[in-house]
């Protein structure tokens, strides 16, 4: 029964959705200090290439590859975060966009390492790897009444879901703490924040690195799910797409990018039947959204409204911390 419901197609879409959610969060993190980074597609690429190359050439376990990918991306985040500290607003946005382009061009041209635009194929597939590991222990999907590919996609999905929940949990907690307040203060008024004793250099670079880390992680996961990557995956369109998740869903609260990525990944699938027009519709939706609800679909007020409905009359504790998660 259940086995028939587990359709790899849906799981595939759901897995890409989760990756997109993670990517959306990566932009949200940096943005919560007021810095708009469009380099996250590039960081994603760095994570993906690092992990792919390590697992292929050094036969490292996928987990190690993914962690290394995320870390290398984070280091690049620090390296680009420090010199761009002085830049603000759109300047930063464009420079990071440019950085992303430069990374892509390097992927294209550094053929000995990256195989150029032909891309890297034969990357260990995380789901198949899980399956073969488990089979080593004598497990067989049919024990669960599943077919192999159902199991493969189910395991990817479950893994991603757990990671996504962890990331959301992590950054929600960070948000409602001293660190989160520092981020918010910097976003609202950098000079005033510094005068209040906040080391803005540290926190801005921290946010940048965290964003890069998360994006790099998403990239590494992506590489091991698709089993094939090429520079075109991490180009301008991806950067813009990630940004749109955040702005569409809302950049004030972490649920914004989560919802944005969810909805905008789902929509093209739902709209497949008019596939020729779906990008036009995509464009239109963005324009209409901005005109009607520029702060994004989900904002602080909406969350508070939900909360009030839920705890109607109930006692609110630590109210100050609850404003926005």
């Amino acid at each position, binding site marked *: 029964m259940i086995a028939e419901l587990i359709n790899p197609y849906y799981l595939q879409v759901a897995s890409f959705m989760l990756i997109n959610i993670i990517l959306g969060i990566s932009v949200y993190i940096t943005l919560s200090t007021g810095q708009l980074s469009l380099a996250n597609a590039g960081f994603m690429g760095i994570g993906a290439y690092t992990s792919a190359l390590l697992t292929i050439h050094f036969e490292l376990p996928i987990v190690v590859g993914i962690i290394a990918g995320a870390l290398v991306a984070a280091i690049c985040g620090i390296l680009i975060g420090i*010199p761009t500290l002085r830049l603000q607003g759109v300047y930063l946005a464009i420079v990071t966009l440019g950085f992303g382009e430069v990374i892509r061009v390097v992927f294209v041209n550094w053929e000995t390492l990256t195989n150029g635009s032909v891309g890297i194929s034969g990357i260990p597939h995380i789901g198949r790897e899980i399956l073969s590991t488990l089979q080593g222990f004598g497990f067989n999907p049919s024990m669960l009444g599943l077919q192999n590919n159902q199991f493969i996609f189910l395991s990817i999905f479950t893994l991603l879901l757990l990671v996504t929940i962890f990331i959301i949990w992590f950054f929600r907690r960070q948000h409602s703490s001293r660190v989160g307040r520092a981020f918010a203060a910097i976003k609202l008024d950098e000079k005033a924040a510094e005068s209040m004793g906040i080391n803005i250099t540290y926190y801005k670079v921290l946010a940048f690195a965290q964003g890069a880390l998360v994006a790099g992680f998403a990239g590494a996961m992506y590489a091991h799910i698709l089993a094939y990557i090429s520079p075109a995956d991490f180009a301008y369109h991806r950067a813009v797409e990630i940004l749109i998740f955040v702005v569409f869903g809302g950049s004030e609260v972490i649920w914004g990018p989560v919802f944005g990525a969810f909805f905008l990944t789902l929509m093209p699938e739902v709209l497949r039947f008019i596939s020729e027009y779906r990008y036009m519709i995509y464009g239109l939706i963005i324009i209409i959204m901005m005109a009607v609800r520029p702060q994004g679909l989900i904002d602080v007020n909406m969350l508070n409204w939900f909360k009030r409905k839920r705890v109607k009359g109930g006692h609110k504790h630590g109210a100050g911390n609850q404003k926005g998660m």
Partner: protein
Amino acid sequence: MLIEQLINGITLGSIYAIVALGFTLVFGVLGIINMAHGEIFMFGAFIGVMITSSLKAPLWVAFAGAIVITAIMGYMLERFALRPLRHKQGVSHLAPLISTIGVSILLENLSHHLFGAGNHPFRASFAEINFQIGSITVYLVQIVIFVISIILMLTLSFWLGKTKAGKALRATAENLETASLLGVDTKRTITMTVIIASAMGGIAGILVGMAFNSVTPQMGLSMGLKGLAIIILGGMGSVRGAMAGGLILGLAETFIVVYGDSGYRDAIAFLAIIIILLIRPQGLFGQKIST
């Protein structure tokens, strides 16, 4: 070969500059990066192609048509994608950026449906006129492009710096509310600016179509990104900066082909802005305003 390459670089640079001027104008007034500018530019080129090849009309009709249609597109862009955001409370300063990205996605895909995905040749006899100087062939279009870019730059910088309308425009850019208190009809100023910038994009589109005999729906994105890099390089809102940035980039891209690896050509623009901004965060000609 050097002289030929120099001509190539200047032609390319002049085109970049014209595109960048359109960006600069809109940024200068609205503080908005108009991500749809590249697509409007592309539409200008297509209108030119349609009028010259399908309707077999003369070139000036093509220019007039492209200007009119891109101007209308500019109006629509302002009316439907920018104006609704303007007086809203709590609007993130990124909202207009996203909104114009929405427009660019819409336009790019619309152009696929209207014009097809393929390349369209630009057949204008004007584009064939050339002079032979020694072994070097110079096309009239190349000269025209250079001259137009210079004229546009001079006109714009005179207009912005010296005329009342230009000052009103700068005031609008600084602070909408203050400008309107000083008697500036900000709505009209903004609409006019977006229209003019778009029409400039349309002109640039035709010129590119003629110079390179190539018009595709994708030309907008690549040109748009370059234009963006240039206004940062030159300093946002600076007319001279856009011109200088355009020429620098055009020459740099040409000479990396000559002396370096053409594979890195697309990265030049962004490497240049990263370096420039680290040394001079406000860009080459931008002025620093501390708040």
